[in-house]
């Protein structure tokens, strides 16, 4: 199948997934026990405001009309008004999304690279002490919930030894004028460090174990033996040939990894008070601020789907068999 057809198919698949996700969301938030109005209003609002909202969100109309309205509204960018902030949800969510995105992109890169490296070395030195140590290392961190390692890291490094800040995204009172200054300054990196390290240690177990199994399978292949027969140094055989092939199943599994990581990042954000979609959603749900919670969920879903598309692109680029057929 040609490049175009492959990417087209993946894009269509993503759209379908998005549609299903939003439908689930629709059902979820309309399923509130009791008053359907509760989905868009808080008890403190006056009857007049409630009536306005009912009209606006067509809550008195039959469900299928609401369904269409929901989609139309979302596509327009109208995600409702947050109770707590008294502002349009869309604006709030957009701002938070960029914070989450930065965090998760860095975590992805670090954990997947580290995990991949560990997997390759572990498979290469299979059975040796290094293999056992690395495996235990990866498994150990995979068994430690990131919320707890985060808390322990904060206790030791932030509260006790004051090496890192206690949370948040930048020190209070810092001012920046443009995007670059916003994200590429030392203060920001200082705040970014702990959440990234703690998350990566947790998430790297998955690509590590996956890469290791993939490597073990590839290492048995004939072309690996032939690479050695050519006189290639063992390091080159492992990385240039074995790892290069093992990366394919590892990227295929990225879909699973992405779903898992985006969910887990919620907890990380909460522990470190990182002002992203995760923390916002936890607070929103806690305060019964349904429009905001819904908005966060939609955005998280969107980001997941986008990430999956990127993973598909990367795979298409890495595996010549997909594209040249």
């Amino acid at each position, binding site marked *: 199948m040609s490049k175009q057809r492959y990417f087209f198919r993946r894009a269509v698949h993503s759209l379908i997934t998005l549609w299903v996700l939003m439908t689930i969301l629709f059902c979820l938030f309309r399923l509130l026990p009791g008053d359907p109005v509760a989905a868009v209003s808080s008890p403190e609002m006056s009857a007049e405001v409630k009536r306005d909202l009912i009209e606006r969100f067509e809550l008195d109309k039959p469900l299928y009309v609401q369904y269409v309205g929901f989609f139309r509204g979302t596509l327009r960018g109208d995600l409702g008004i947050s109770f707590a902030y008294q502002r349009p949800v869309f604006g709030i969510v957009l701002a938070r999304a960029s914070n989450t995105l930065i965090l998760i992109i860095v975590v992805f890169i670090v954990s997947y690279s580290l995990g991949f490296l560990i997997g390759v070395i572990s498979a290469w030195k299979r059975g040796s002490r290094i293999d056992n140590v690395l495996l235990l290392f990866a498994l150990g961190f995979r068994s430690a919930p990131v919320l707890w390692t985060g808390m322990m890291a904060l206790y030791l490094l932030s509260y006790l030894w004051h090496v890192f800040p206690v949370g948040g995204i930048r020190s209070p009172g810092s001012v920046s004028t443009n995007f670059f200054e916003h994200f590429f300054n030392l203060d920001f990196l200082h705040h970014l460090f702990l959440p990234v390290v703690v998350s990566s240690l947790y998430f790297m177990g998955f690509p590590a174990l996956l890469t290791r199994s993939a490597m073990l399978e590839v290492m048995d292949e004939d072309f690996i033996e032939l690479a050695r*027969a050519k*006189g290639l140094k063992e390091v080159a055989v492992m990385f240039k040939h074995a790892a*290069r092939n093992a990366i394919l199943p590892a990227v295929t599994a990225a879909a699973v990894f992405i779903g898992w990581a985006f969910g887990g990042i919620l907890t990380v954000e909460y522990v470190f008070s990182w002002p992203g979609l995760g923390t916002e959603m936890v607070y929103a749900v806690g305060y019964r601020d349904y429009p905001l919670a819904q908005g966060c969920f939609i955005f998280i879903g969107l980001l997941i789907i986008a990430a999956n598309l990127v993973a598909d692109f990367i795979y298409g680029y890495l595996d010549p068999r997909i594209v040249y*057929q």
Partner: protein
Amino acid sequence: MVKPTLLDVKNLAIEYTMRGGVIHAIDGVSFEVKAGECFGLVGESGCGKSTAAKAILGLWASNAAVTAGEIIFNGRDLLRIGRGDLSRVRWKEIALIPQNAMNALDPVYTIFDQIYEAMRIHKNVRKPEARERIAELFGLVGLKEDILTHFPHQLSGGMKQRVCIAMALALEPQLVIADEPTTALDVLIQDQILQLVKGLQIRLQVAVLYISHDISIISHMCTRIAVMYAGRIVELGDLRGVLKTPYHPYTMGLLNATPNIGQVRELISIPGVPPDLRVVPKGCRFAPRCPFVKDRCRLEDPDLYAVDGDRRARCFFTSEALTFRELAQQEQTWK
């Protein structure tokens, strides 16, 4: 004209360590390959021929170990030289044509990349120069240059095998180990590749160690052969001699079971199976299946005895070979 000895394998022994125990894959394997000749190593699956051949290049599984022997090539013992020296010998002096061409090429690199890699490891050659050399090689094996930008999955089995042959010859090695290169191909392509390899061997005067389970293929290719059974060489010598006047009962049985060799007659197979090599068998390894077995065979292990000039056979009773040969032709001998 006596050709100089290029490769001298002496008493090679290799063991595999597995969960169930230790498998003595090959034991006491000795043979010589002379410069420019085609030497055949023949035997059924599992007899250790591939293991022995690949050991020359230092290629054995991670759970395998060489427990004895020497592999003398150009005056050096390949089993005892340093890793750096060994990698310099690989491909440049001794190349390999792999058995399974379907799997022998890395699926994520182009054909050009893979052949270029082989060259680059040993010579500082630039891409245009490499392309010229590859064009030359492709001419020899009958391939078009346009496949250079292709990936392995885009080529047919026969084409891949030709690529492997071209790649093996890239650095003009002195010895090429051909590990059953036609096994994975269908019969028509098999024939083509065979003709190709034979032609190249004669033309380029390169020594070939040809491994196969098919004695008829060997008979078309090689001038000297060794027959392997249960990890050992049981017969050795010039092709014509071994085929016309075999000294070892296993060889006799093998010839019986092969169509189109010798006279036209019924195919007779050797009953039984090769021994389990987890336990070192007592006595001659072929004894359980040999129709001419005597008491001594079960107790003592025969050496590879010289029988006639260059000929060798691993049997106590080579003096009775004439009688054995006649009996071996009859079906009821093998029941």
